[in-house]
C-alpha cells in the first residue's frame, strides 16, 4: 500500500478545493517539495453547493448557493482568484414587496435608505443608524475569529483526560488570550452586548430598535436563512451576524453576484488548485475511509478501488463523514462518544430552492423597478415568518413561505439570453421529510405550486414569464449535492455547535479522532456561507502537522 498522495480530499466543494489549493501551495515560499493532493468528487464536476449548471438551454442556474459575500478576501488574494476568472459584482439594493401597500427598500446609499424607511416610520428610520452601528461593532469582534483555528479552552486544564483529541500541539492559551484581548478592547458595554447578541433571538434584538412589524420581519430575514429556527428562537441573532460579516472590497455586509453564477467561485478555486498541481478526479465516490491502527491511510471508492495517502481530509458534512464514510467500529475503538456526537449533530434541512428561467423581468408589488437589481425578500411581519415556521415544525413545507429571491441576470450578461432572466428562489421553511413520510412527486409539485403562488401574489403576471422551473427540496439537495438533510451550512449555526464545539466537542480544530484524518467543510469553524475559511484553516493545521511551512 504505497501512498501515492500526501493528502486525499473527500469532496470537491469549494472548501475541499480551498484546502487542496492551500496544501499544494504550502511550503512554496520555504522551497519545500510540493505536496501531492488528490480531490475526489462524486459528481461529474466540482463545486458541490457552489455550482453553475445549464439546466434549461441557454440559461445558467446557480443551482444551490446564489450570492457571494463571505468568501474571505485572504483566500481571494492568496489563490489569486480574479486571475482564475472570478469576478464578484456587488449589488446595492434589498427589498421586500407588499401586495397590500408600499414595499420596503434599502439601498447601499445611506440617505436614500433613510428616505425610503421614513415613508414607513420616522422612528425606525432614525433607529436604523443605531442598529447599523451596533451590527458593525459586532462584526468588528467576529472578523478576526474567522480565519483562525478556534482555540479550545479545555486544553488549558492540565488535569484533563481528553482521550478524543490527545494532540495538544497548538497553543490554545495564546489564541484565547488574543480573543480575550479583542474582547476587552470592545469596552465594557460592548462586551455585555456581544454576550447578549450571541445568545438572543433576532426578534428580541429587533424589538429593541424598531416598531414597524413588516420592517422587523424584513430585517430578520438574514437571521433565519438556512436555519431550522423561528425569529423568536434564541441564537438567531448570531445567524444574522453570520450573513453580515462578509464584505466586498472592504465594504462590510455587502453581497454580490459571482459573474457566471456561483459555480464561478468553485471553478476559479479549482483552476488555482490545478495550477498548483492538485489532481481532481470527478465521477468518483468515496465509499469508506480506510482506518488502520487508529490511523487514516486512504479511501475506498464505490467501485472498490483503494487509494492510499498520508492524510485524508473530508469536505463532507460531519454526519455523512462519521456515520457513512467511517465504520462505527473504527470510531468506537477511539471513543464511543463520537458516534453519539455525530448522531446528535443538528443538521436539520430547512430550505428548498427553485431555479426559474424567465421570459422577462417580473415587476414586484409595491416596489420600484430597481429593486430587481438586488435581493427581493417575500415575507411579512414576525407572525408571517412564525406561521411559516409552524408549518415546518409540524412536518410540512410553509404554505406561505419566506422567499429570498435574486435575479442575477439583471447584472450578469452571461447567464441568460439578452432580455431573459434567471431567478433564484430560496425557500424557507422546507422539511427534509414530510412528518415521517418521504417526499413524493405529487408533494413536490404541491410545494412548487405554493411557492409560485406566493411569488405571483407579490409579482402579478410572474407566472406567465416562466419558461422552466427546477425545484429542489432538502431531500433533493441531500441526494444530489450530498449535504445531509439538505442543510446549507453543514450543520446548524447555533452557539452549541460553534467555535471549538464545531462540529463536535474535542474535534473543533479540524483534526479528526484518528491520526492523519481531518475535516475541512462548513461543518467546521466558522461555518457555511461559501466562506472558504474552514478549508483554509484546515489546510493551515495540516501544513503545521506536515511541518510544511505556514500559509
Amino acid at each position: 500500500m504505497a501512498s501515492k498522495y500526501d493528502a486525499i480530499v473527500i469532496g470537491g466543494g469549494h472548501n475541499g478545493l480551498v484546502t487542496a489549493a492551500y496544501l499544494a501551495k504550502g511550503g512554496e515560499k520555504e522551497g519545500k517539495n510540493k505536496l501531492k493532493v488528490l480531490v475526489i468528487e462524486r459528481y461529474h464536476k466540482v463545486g458541490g453547493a457552489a455550482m453553475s449548471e445549464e439546466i434549461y438551454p441557454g440559461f445558467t442556474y446557480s443551482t444551490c448557493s446564489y450570492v457571494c459575500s463571505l468568501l474571505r478576501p485572504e483566500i481571494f488574494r492568496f489563490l489569486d482568484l480574479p486571475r482564475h476568472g472570478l469576478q464578484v459584482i456587488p449589488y446595492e439594493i434589498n427589498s421586500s414587496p407588499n401586495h397590500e401597500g408600499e414595499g420596503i427598500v434599502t439601498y447601499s446609499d445611506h440617505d436614500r435608505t433613510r428616505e425610503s424607511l421614513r415613508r414607513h416610520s420616522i422612528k425606525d428610520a432614525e433607529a436604523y443608524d443605531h442598529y447599523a452601528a451596533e451590527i458593525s461593532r459586532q462584526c468588528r469582534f467576529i472578523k478576526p475569529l474567522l480565519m483562525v483555528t478556534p482555540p479550545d479552552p479545555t486544553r488549558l486544564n492540565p488535569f484533563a483526560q481528553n482521550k478524543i483529541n490527545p494532540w495538544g500541539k497548538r497553543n490554545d492559551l495564546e489564541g484565547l488570550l488574543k480573543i480575550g484581548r479583542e474582547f476587552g478592547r470592545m469596552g465594557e458595554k460592548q462586551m455585555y452586548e456581544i454576550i447578549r447578541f450571541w445568545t438572543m433571538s433576532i426578534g428580541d434584538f429587533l424589538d429593541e430598535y424598531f416598531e414597524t412589524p413588516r420592517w422587523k420581519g424584513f430585517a430578520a430575514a438574514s437571521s433565519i436563512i438556512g436555519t431550522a429556527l423561528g425569529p423568536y428562537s434564541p441564537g438567531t441573532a448570531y445567524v444574522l451576524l453570520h450573513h453580515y460579516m462578509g464584505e466586498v472590497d472592504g465594504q462590510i455586509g455587502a453581497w454580490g453576484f459571482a459573474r457566471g453564477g456561483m459555480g464561478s467561485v468553485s471553478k476559479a478555486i479549482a483552476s488555482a488548485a490545478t495550477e498548483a498541481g492538485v489532481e481532481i478526479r470527478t465521477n468518483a465516490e468515496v465509499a469508506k475511509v480506510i482506518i488502520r491502527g487508529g490511523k487514516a491511510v486512504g479511501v475506498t471508492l464505490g467501485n472498490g478501488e483503494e487509494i492510499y495517502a498520508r492524510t485524508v481530509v473530508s469536505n463532507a458534512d460531519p454526519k455523512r463523514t462519521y456515520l457513512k464514510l467511517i465504520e462505527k467500529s473504527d470510531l468506537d475503538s477511539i471513543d464511543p462518544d463520537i458516534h453519539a456526537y455525530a448522531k446528535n449533530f443538528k443538521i436539520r434541512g430547512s430550505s428548498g430552492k427553485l431555479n426559474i428561467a424567465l421570459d422577462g423581468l417580473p415587476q414586484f408589488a409595491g416596489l420600484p423597478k430597481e429593486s430587481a437589481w438586488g435581493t427581493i425578500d417575500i415575507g411579512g411581519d414576525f407572525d408571517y415568518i412564525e406561521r411559516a415556521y409552524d408549518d415546518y415544525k409540524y412536518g410540512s413545507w410553509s404554505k406561505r413561505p419566506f422567499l429570498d429571491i435574486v435575479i442575477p441576470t439583471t447584472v450578469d450578461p452571461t447567464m441568460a439570453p439578452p432580455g431573459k432572466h434567471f431567478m433564484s428562489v430560496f425557500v424557507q421553511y422546507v422539511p427534509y421529510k414530510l412528518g415521517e413520510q418521504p417526499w413524493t412527486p405529487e408533494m413536490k409539485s404541491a410545494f412548487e405550486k405554493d411557492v409560485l403562488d406566493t411569488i405571483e401574489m407579490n409579482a402579478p403576471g410572474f407566472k406567465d414569464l416562466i419558461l422552466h422551473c427546477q425545484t429542489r427540496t432538502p431531500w433533493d439537495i441531500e441526494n444530489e449535492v450530498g449535504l445531509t438533510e439538505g442543510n446549507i451550512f453543514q450543520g446548524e449555526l447555533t452557539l452549541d455547535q460553534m467555535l471549538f464545539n464545531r462540529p463536535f466537542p474535542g474535534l473543533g480544530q479540524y483534526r479528526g479522532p484518528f491520526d492523519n484524518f481531518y475535516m475541512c467543510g462548513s461543518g467546521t469553524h466558522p461555518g457555511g456561507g461559501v466562506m472558504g475559511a474552514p478549508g483554509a484553516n484546515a489546510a493551515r493545521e495540516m501544513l503545521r502537522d506536515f511541518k510544511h511551512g505556514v500559509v
Partner: protein
Amino acid sequence: MTHVQHLKPFLKKTPFHDAMEAMMHGAGWIRWQGYYSPAYYDSTQSEYMATRNGATVYDVSPLIKYAIKGKDAAKFANYLVTRDLSKVAPMNVAYTAWCDDDGRMIEEGTLFRLGENDFILNAALHQLHWLNESAYGFSVEIEEISEQLAGLSLQGPNSRAILEVLGVQGIGKLPHFGIMETIVDGHWLRIDRAGFTGDLGYEIWVKPPDALWLWETLFRLGDPYKIAPMGGHALEMTRVEAGFILVDVDYIGSHHAIRPTQRVSPIEAGIGWAVSLKKDAYFVGKRALQKEKAEGSSRFILSGIEVEGRKPAPGAFLYADEKGTKELGLTTSAMWSPLLKKNIAFAQIPMAYTKPGTEMWIEIWYPKEKKIERSMVKCWTRNRMFFDPPRKKEIV
C-alpha cells in the same frame, strides 16, 4: 452597477433651492442629510472673502430640528445636555454638548429656549432615537420639525445693516445668542444672533413658503452692502477660524463610533466650558465627566495650534521634539487663513501642552509637482478661537 438608470432622484430640495440654483455656476451641489446643499457657487475664495468683508447667506434649512415641549421640557432638556439651562433665559440660544452615560459626546449643537418649557434642538445628525430613549419618565413631546422652518444664515460685518434696511426693529439691541421674533411685510421671522463663522451674524428662520421672498429681499436690499451667497467650502474655512468643532471631522459621535476608544468627552473635544458640572440637576454623563475632571484623566484636549510656514497640516502628527521621538497627537482640521495670514489647525494634544504659546513640532507631508515632500516645523498652542472680532458681541 446597471440599475442606476432605473433609480428615481431622491435628494430633497430646500425651500431656497430655486434661488440657489440660479446662482450656481459650477457643479457645486453636495449632500447634506439628504438635501441638496451648495458646496460653492463660483469660487470658494470669493465666497469666503465676501463673508469676511460684507455679508453672505448660507442655507441652513437641512439642519435637523427637534421641538421639545411639555410640562417637563425644561427638566428634560437640562437632563439631556451638559450646559446649565437654569442660567439660560427664554429667547436665548445655548451652545451645548450632549453625552451618553459614559460622558462621551453624542453631538454638540445649539438649543433654542423659546419659552420656559419650549425648546428647539438643532443637530447635524439624527437624534430622535436618543431623545426618545432619554425622555423616558419625563412628560415631554418631542417632534422633528426640520421641514417646518426654512433658515438662512446671514453672516459678516454688514449683516446687521442689512437686517436694519430690511426693517427689523431692535436688531441692534439683540444680544449675542439672543433670539427675537418679528413681522416684516406681513412675514413672520425668527432671528437668532449666532452662526458658524465667528463673526457678527444672524440666523433667520421663516415659514417655508416665505423662503424665496426672504432670499430675494435680502439680495435686493443687501446689494449695496456687498451681500453674496456662500457654499459649504467657504463656511468650512470660516468655522475653523472661529474655532468651531464639527462632528465626524473633529470628533466621532459616540453613538456611531465603532471603536469605544474613539469616543471623546466634551472636555477632550475642547468644549469643557460647555459642561456645567456644578449644575444641581443630574445630566446624562455627569458622573463620568465629574470623574474625568477630578482625576484629570482627559486623554487630550482639542486645541488650536498655529503652524510655522504656509503648508496646511491636515491629519498631521505632532511631536514634542524635532526628531519626532515623542508623539503628542494629531490634527483634525487645518487650513491657511487668508484673513489672519496664519497657518492654523485644531489638534488633539495632551493637557500639559494646552497652555497657549507651548512649542511643539509637526510633521507635514505635502504634494509638490507629483512629489510628496515632508517638512518638520514648529507649531504653537493657541486659543482655538483664532478669529474673534469685537463686533461679534457688540450691542448698538
